[in-house]
């Protein structure tokens, strides 16, 4: 049980280059499950490895339980790591893999076997204890890697994309297993992923990194509903949010079309010239096919360019009709989630009612207005 603190932690691989992790400030509470997300190369693994002691810190401090561990070796930090590649010892059986750390730490034989047996029971590995990694499936190897971490009962778990080598179905079940296990053990966990479903479903809180810099940290709902900038808004949520740039502001309202005007929050926003508007794919409903009532506020007429049916839901990629001059969608099309029962075809015209309260507004630099 421990808290983890990053204080202005920086890691530069080459002097003069942009640091891989740039003055990261982070506080993970005792027993908390923190998920770190961000695009590839944003410094997630590097941050985690600095916590684990596998990567030196250029400047700043890493604290575990309030104790500065910046200069400590990995083995002296009481941190366990689950690697993306599992990194099992190929010459040892599953049981030996799990017992290895305990042996090195001088735990008594009897103690080792009870702890390994307990971990094996929790992870349903009892039948595999005498098997070597080469003769296991991916999911089983993953569980051995988890087992190797939990037998040690460390202060902190570090997990670097532990599910990315599993197939989609196994990933879903293992996701739940890991989250449950963490709740039961109550061990502080830092979990790195680029899968945003994992980020939304597993963590108590989520930290979003971009180019080595922390963008936002908060509960999954907070990140989804109140992202601090367009990057976080675009990163969280799948399909991602529809962003429309350079929307002119008139009388404190962002004017998308004649029929769709969104109130801009905040005095600064109302004074702005142009803003970026974000509409989630589920932030609009269909009023009726064909030409609707262009006069109504909050209505967006669109033409359907492409339809993706996933069975449970339908995504329509649409082009807005009559979008105000100068403003452009960031993606090629806007995407909206529609009822699967709705019969939409490519080329058909729809009118959407946009839930104005859910619409996000950002200033020209991309920061959220509120």
């Amino acid at each position, binding site marked *: 049980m421990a808290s983890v603190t990053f204080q202005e932690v920086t890691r530069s691989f080459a002097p003069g280059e942009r640091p891989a992790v740039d003055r990261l400030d982070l506080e993970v509470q005792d027993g908390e499950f923190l998920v770190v997300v961000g695009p590839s190369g944003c410094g997630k693994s590097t941050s985690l490895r600095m916590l684990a002691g596998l990567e030196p810190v250029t400047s700043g401090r890493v604290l575990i339980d309030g104790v500065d561990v910046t200069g400590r070796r990995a083995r002296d930090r009481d941190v366990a790591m689950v690697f993306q590649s599992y*990194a099992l010892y190929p010459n040892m059986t599953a049981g030996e893999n799990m017992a290895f750390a305990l042996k090195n730490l001088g735990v008594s034989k009897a103690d080792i076997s009870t702890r390994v047996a307990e971990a094996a029971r929790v992870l349903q590995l009892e039948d595999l204890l005498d098997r070597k990694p080469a003769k296991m499936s991916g999911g089983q190897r993953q569980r051995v890697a988890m087992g190797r971490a939990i037998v040690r009962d460390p202060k902190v778990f570090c997990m670097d994309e532990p599910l990315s080598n599993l197939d989609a179905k196994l990933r879903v079940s293992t996701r739940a297993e890991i989250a449950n296990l963490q709740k039961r053990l109550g061990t502080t966990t830092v979990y790195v992923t680029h899968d945003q479903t994992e980020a939304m479903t597993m963590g108590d809180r989520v930290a979003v990194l971009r180019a080595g810099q922390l963008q936002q940290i908060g509960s999954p709902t907070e990140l989804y509903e109140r992202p601090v900038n367009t990057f976080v808004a675009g990163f969280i949520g799948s399909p991602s949010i529809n962003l429309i740039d350079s929307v002119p502001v008139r009388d404190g309202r962002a004017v998308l079309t004649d029929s769709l005007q969104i109130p801009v929050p905040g005095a600064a926003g109302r004074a702005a010239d142009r803003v970026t508007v974000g509409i989630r794919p589920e932030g609009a409903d269909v009023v009726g096919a064909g030409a609707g009532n262009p006069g109504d506020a909050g209505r967006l007429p669109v033409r359907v360019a492409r339809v993706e049916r996933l069975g449970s839901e339908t995504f329509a990629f649409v082009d807005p009709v009559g979008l105000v001059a100068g403003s452009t969608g960031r993606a090629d099309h806007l995407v909206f989630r529609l009822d699967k029962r709705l019969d939409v075809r490519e080329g058909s015209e729809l009118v959407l009612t946009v839930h104005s309260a859910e619409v996000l507004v950002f200033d020209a630099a991309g920061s959220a207005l509120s």
Partner: protein
Amino acid sequence: MTALAPQDRPESRTSDSPSPAPPSAAPHERSSPLSRVGGYLGLLLVILVVALPLYWILISSLKERPDIYTVPVTWVPDPFTAANYSRVGTGVAFTDYLRNSIIITTVLTVVEVTLGVLSAFALAFLRFPGRSLVLLFVIASLMVPNQVTVISNYALVAQLGWRNTFAGIIVPLAGVAFGTFLLRNHFLSLPKEIIEAAEMDAAGPLKMLWRVVLPMSWPTLIAFVLITIVTEWNQYLWPLLMADDSSTAPLPVGLAQLQDTAGLTNWGPVMAGTVLTMLPILVIFLLLQRHMIKGLTAGAVKG
């Protein structure tokens, strides 16, 4: 084989160029009969180059003295005789030389493999000041031919009074630049995460070496052991300079001695001695090569 029939490499064939075999044929059946014959001829040539001298040694050792020189050449000894083998023992102190060879090779192999593994481990996994400089020295010493250092080594060893001692033969030969280099590169090719996992699992350097690194390195290590054994077993120049008699000289020196005592034209006993010298190495090779299997890291990391 591809060099003999470049037109037949599957990747060089485009879809519209006519293929010499039906497209439905399996890849290994596609090559034309001509290129196959060419391939086998190539193989045959290589086998002849490698095996013929060995065969010649073997049959010469089994022939009677006049038969060795007959023209035309006889490929099967007629009659077979083992007399050359018994003459090996009477001509020189063969067992003494054999003993010396075993002592020298064993000590050198143990020392070189131990030093090679430890130094490679340090250069691959431990961080210490001057690491790259040490590596540079190791690589540099690989580039110096042994013959260059013979004279200075001789002067030094003679001064120490080590001539005609095992120490005099062994110590100057115990350098391990090649092994260090080979094993270090192999260690660096091991999955980095496993080393890191062991680090996090609080494995000290020795534990890391024994329980994690070496178990993934047996094929390379065994290859290195084999190379070392063969090299040291065949050492000739340095032992010849160091040892004056059968008290310390190894087999290759003994064979040269045998040629002197048997007479320069009497090849039978020399060939028999050569066969006897090769045998132990052959046995060791057959024993070890079974362990040079691949795939020791299977299941360790995915992707």
